[in-house]
């Protein structure tokens, strides 16, 4: 019998409702993280949604969440990040300053240009299979900065999804689809870590 898990959803700005709807469908408990007091030690994972990375980065600082969240991720808290979330995690941002800088990749913000450059594509995500990809003023990954970074998807010649130990990050938006498989995969990562922690 699996232990009960609670996933934190960073709810500072952006499409966090959509992630919560996916978690609800997967019958996973979640809590919105809006302030320092919401970021408790009982969380088994955290989702950083799409939105504007400049806004989320500023609010992380203003609300005293920045360093505590960064430490949790470094210590192994499973994190799933989409679009702006990927930018928040990236160690390097080629056209902006880095924020949490926990994921050894270099990303480019607004890599496809303005809203007219937003697009949908069909692609395969490693370990998942064919998956509908939606890119909204999206970034892409220019380079992986550590050998352990696993590439999960390349679209139109650029890396758009990676996993690095506890960190799962993608430029596209599974929360804008009806396909639960990537969220289910993230819950597996969180469950494995919880099992390890309980066994230790």
């Amino acid at each position, binding site marked *: 019998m699996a232990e009960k898990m609670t996933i934190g959803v960073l709810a500072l700005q952006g*499409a966090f409702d959509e992630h919560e709807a996916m978690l609800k469908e997967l019958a996973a408990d979640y809590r919105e993280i809006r302030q320092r007091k919401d970021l408790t030690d009982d969380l088994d994972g955290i989702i950083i949604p799409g939105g504007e990375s400049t806004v989320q980065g500023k609010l992380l600082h203003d609300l005293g969440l920045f360093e505590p969240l960064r430490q949790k991720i470094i210590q192994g808290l499973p994190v799933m990040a989409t679009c702006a979330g990927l930018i928040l995690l990236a160690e390097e941002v080629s056209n902006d300053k880095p924020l949490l800088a926990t994921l050894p990749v270099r990303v480019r913000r607004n890599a496809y240009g303005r809203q007219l450059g937003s697009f949908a594509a069909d692609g395969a995500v490693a370990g998942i299979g064919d998956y509908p990809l939606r890119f909204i*003023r999206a970034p892409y990954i220019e380079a992986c900065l550590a050998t352990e970074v696993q590439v999960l998807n390349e679209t139109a010649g650029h890396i758009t999804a990676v996993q690095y130990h506890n960190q799962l990050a993608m430029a596209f938006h599974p929360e804008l689809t009806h396909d639960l498989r990537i969220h289910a995969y993230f819950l597996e990562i969180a469950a494995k870590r919880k099992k390890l922690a309980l066994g230790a």
Partner: protein
Amino acid sequence: MAEKTEGIGNRYELNKNLAQMLKGGVIMDVTTPEQAKIAEEAGACAVMALERIPADIRAAGGVARMSDPAMIRGIQEAVSIPVMAKCRIGHIVEAQLLQAIEIDYIDESEVLSPADDVYHIDKRKFAVPFVCGARDLGEALRRISEGAAMIRTKGEPGTGDVVQAVHHMRKINQQMAAIASLREDELFEAAKKYQVPYDLVAYVHEHKKLPVVNFAAGGVATPADAALMMQLGAEGVFVGSGIFKSGNPAKRASAIVQAVTNYEDAELIARLSENLGEAMVGINADEIQLLMAERGR
């Protein structure tokens, strides 16, 4: 290698998706690249580029038109967040020009002088997304049927008086609740009453919400105003004249952004509201001659 898939239906979905990314955020009116940078640094999730903010449009009188494309480009170059701009209601060509300079969102706005007193733009013909104002559910669903990918309340722009935005938000929500409570066979009559397509009424009946994101706009001047609109069900807030007509724009903008994220935390909003300097002077919405919200139904 993954292929891009394209199509008008798909484009509309992508455009609605961009509005979803703006949720929980504050969109700020700016008139210069410097203001745009201040707004971005204060945490705006997008900026609305316009030559004059609504309070000044009101003061100046005369015909208010789309802004100079060079001015909009200057703002596009200054910031990395989405840039919106306004065209006049029904002005197809102003919208085409805004699309040509790759604006991220067009606001077909009652703040400018209407170019057409009957027809709105057929927004389905455009690749860039549109946001439109609405005072009630009928207006909102009519704009959506024309292709709007995002809705905002009209409020009464340029007044610093939030009463109309509150009125519009409550009305839209009450009307949606009323539709949600109907029997299915009553929806046809509701579509007739609201003068909107049946499919959109059926969507509201099933989901108890609009099929696009709904922000508050018009008269928001303080962190408390912004939090009020969020508590009433807005998914984000436009702040027009309220920021750059105030004493300390950077501080006020940052406070409004935090108040929108933590709109239920009164202690935090009280702290954020301390020493913000002069709020915009404001005009009571019932003391003014020109009701912009009456434009475009």
